[in-house]
């Protein structure tokens, strides 16, 4: 089931359009991966879904209802979680406080959810009282994801969750993202490491210059000679 359907997104930050017609979708229990060159508009497309961008045209529906006109916080309250590309943790706050902020809108007790996060990301458990800004790169990405997962979103948007990580850490983070997906969350992930990310993706979107170039299953895209030549380095 398509939980998110974004069609014909056109818009930008000022007079110039960055998105020139982007289509995205996400399915429960499936991992969608968005790849493309720097400046293609990947982050901007996620911002559009989150209501952080003025759209000139296009429609976004979440669970069958239009998100048009809703504020960012209203979209979060609907069940969308997001990890931005930069500044994705509260550096001066402890790991535990980061998780608490992720659960800010949750009415029920947070303790069980926090324990669940420590089960998904065991390295965080012993760092719970440390300022998140003091953790290693990989652990910060874990904090960032755990914060977003605290509200138990049905759609999770991840913007380059492995940026700056070594290949070993990257594989580790990818494995955890697959686990989260298999638990039924719809995940839409922007990634620089296109080949590896598409290899674990159910659906892949290749964006360039603010528009979709290719859309298909991850395996199809990795096998496609045109995609390989233009975006995967041969």
């Amino acid at each position, binding site marked *: 089931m398509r939980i998110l359907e974004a069609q014909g997104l056109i818009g930008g930050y000022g007079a110039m359009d960055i998105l020139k017609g982007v289509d995205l979708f996400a399915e429960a229990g499936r991992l969608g991966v968005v790849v493309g060159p720097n400046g293609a508009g990947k982050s901007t497309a996620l911002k559009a879904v989150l209501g952080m961008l003025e759209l000139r045209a296009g429609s976004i529906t979440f669970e069958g209802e239009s998100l048009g006109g809703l504020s960012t*916080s209203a979209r979060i309250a609907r069940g969308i979680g997001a990890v931005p590309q930069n500044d994705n*943790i509260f550096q001066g*706050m402890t790991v535990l*406080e980061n998780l608490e902020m992720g659960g*800010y809108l949750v009415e029920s007790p947070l303790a069980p959810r926090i324990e669940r996060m420590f089960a998904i990301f065991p390295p965080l458990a012993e760092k719970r009282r440390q300022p998140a800004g003091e953790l290693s790169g990989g652990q910060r990405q874990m904090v960032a994801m755990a914060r977003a997962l605290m509200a138990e979103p049905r759609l999770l948007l991840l913007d380059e969750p492995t940026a700056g990580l070594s290949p070993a850490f990257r594989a580790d983070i990818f494995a955890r993202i697959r686990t989260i997906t298999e638990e039924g969350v719809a995940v839409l992930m922007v990634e620089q490491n296109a080949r590896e990310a598409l290899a674990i993706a159910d659906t892949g979107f290749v964006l360039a210059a603010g528009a979709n170039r290719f859309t298909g299953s991850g395996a199809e895209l990795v096998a496609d000679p045109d995609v390989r030549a233009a975006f995967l380095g041969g």
Partner: protein
Amino acid sequence: MLAFVNFYLIPGVIVGSIYALGAVGVSLIFAILRFAHFAHGDLMTLGAYLALSLVAAAGLAPFLALPFAMAGAIVVALVVHRLFYAPLANRPTIVLLIASFGVALMLRSAIQLLWGVQVETYVQGIQRPLVFFDDLRIAERHIYIVLATVVAIVALHVFLTATRAGKAMRAVADQPELAELSGIDRKAVVRQVWVIGGGLAAMAGVFLGIDGELDPNMGWDLLLPVFAAALLGGIGRPYGAIAGGYVIGLAQELATYPWIGAEPLLSPGYKSAVAFALMVGLLLWRPQGLLRGREGT
């Protein structure tokens, strides 16, 4: 030795408390709204005069009038925000700074209009200090000022570290966009900042009046040391601002002690230059603030 404690150390701690209470508000407002609030001194003055009215009309002791003065200053701070700052929320923050300058002038004029320009005091006549160990003289009001400041600082600490709203405030200061992505209501946080900032400003103003006298420029005149304290602590960091307040307060008083020979090291008339010198020196040497080690609160 006791003269040093009675006439330099204790006054230093008292003005330090007053600066700290003012600087915390300046620092929190900067952390959330990203502008230097130039009307903060006049908010202090307002608090002092609101208490004066209660002292004069109802015969309340200044300390009992304090909660009402704080409530009044909070209401004014919230209204000022709504009328003058909120409409400028999407403009560059320098516009807010200039607006706060205008608010400062308006508040001061209103105070002059309502209460007059003459110097006032809460209590007439000489107040005898309590005497400990034969020579240690501490005025009762000074004990109350220090105790109340400590209570306010502890309460603020508990708020910021142990309550949902306080943590949300730190989150907005830390990463405003991520706070929004966590569903934190920024408007509510901004209101709470004015409640804390306005309340503590009134407290500082009332203490300033208790410690000396009231005049319509009393808060404005304090803006320099209060801003110096906030900067010293690394602007936007409330704990730093508290420490900064005490550093400036003590430095000002201790600079007038006759450290060498019998003359004051610095003539008392130049006290406020100490804050200025500290601030300039700091900006040249460590623009990020004295206590700032790494990113974050």
